[in-house]
């Protein structure tokens, strides 16, 4: 039976660095995929990926077993991405959508560089899907990516975002409706 995330973290805290390697292997696809979609850039996504796990390396007590490891992981990832956007935007509040003609994180998140697996489903449909995702509002896209990549329930995502679950579901529902409308329109 495979060790749970909490068991791996405990083993890492107990002095076994290889347990961290197993944790990274287990979560790398989802976490990196999320960060890549969020930033639209491989270098930024890799930096943030490292930053997230290095946080655990430098402070193993940062993760508390009472929460799901994935919830902690994606909370840290989201906050790290927002911090980076703020730094790169050089202003205190950087809206996810760009303003004054400058691109915001939402613009970067629209069409990331395709990775090897994404390239396999690339082509016209892939481009249309990317465009449809790019046309979502930042709030809708954020919830959409979190749900898809983290595997967390909507209740857990609501807690992560500090929102009522109704709001999260409403954003997802509007996102789904917008995606359908955009894909159907582009197909005509």
């Amino acid at each position, binding site marked *: 039976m495979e060790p749970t995330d909490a068991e791996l973290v405990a083993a890492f805290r107990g002095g076994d660095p290889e347990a961290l390697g197993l944790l990274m292997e287990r979560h790398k696809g989802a976490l990196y995929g999320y960060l890549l979609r969020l930033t639209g850039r491989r270098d930024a996504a890799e930096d943030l990926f490292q930053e997230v796990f290095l946080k655990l390396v430098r402070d193993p007590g940062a993760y508390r077993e009472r929460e799901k490891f994935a919830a902690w992981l994606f909370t840290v990832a989201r906050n790290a991405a927002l911090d980076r956007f703020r730094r790169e935007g050089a202003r205190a509040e950087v809206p996810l959508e760009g303003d004054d003609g400058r691109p915001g994180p939402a613009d970067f998140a629209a069409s990331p560089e395709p990775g090897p697996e994404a390239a396999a489903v690339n082509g016209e449909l892939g481009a249309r899907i990317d465009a449809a995702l790019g046309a979502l509002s930042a709030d809708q896209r954020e919830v959409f990516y979190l749900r898809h990549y983290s595997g967390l329930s909507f209740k857990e995502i609501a807690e992560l975002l500090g929102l009522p679950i109704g709001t999260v579901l409403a954003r997802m529902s509007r996102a*789904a409706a917008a995606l359908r409308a955009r894909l159907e329109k582009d197909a005509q």
Partner: protein
Amino acid sequence: MNCGYGEKLILYFYGEADAALAAEVSAHLAGCPACRGELEALRAVSGRLAPEAPRPEVLASVMRTARALAGKRGRGPVFGWRELLLSGALASVLAGLFAVSGRPSRELAWNAGLDSRLDSVEYSVYQAQADFTASAGDWDYSYSELEDESLNVKDNV
């Protein structure tokens, strides 16, 4: 979509609908092209959002740091009886120095090149001295405020 099944469809698609709700949505889908269209869109987009892997050197870099820190933590502090005696002796000397010096010396506490295990003792002594000095300053300030008030009262009488 005006059928009011938007959020229920989301729960259904992501496997969070209980049996009753799943059955209700299934039945609804049979008669709602808009909901079927949304389901298709969700499937297509989910297929596009594939997991991606960072370059192996990204993970390798994290692991190097993790192994290096694990090595350091594993060695840990060696605190035998000799270290205890030395710590006590040094702490006493430092306490004496702070007691007779006019001002607490931050440099002495932090730049003396003493073993880092003694820093907490030194800092406690330094902090106590600093607190005493600050309190003394507060008394001076409060006294001068009283003097000012006294002068004001005299002027206004």
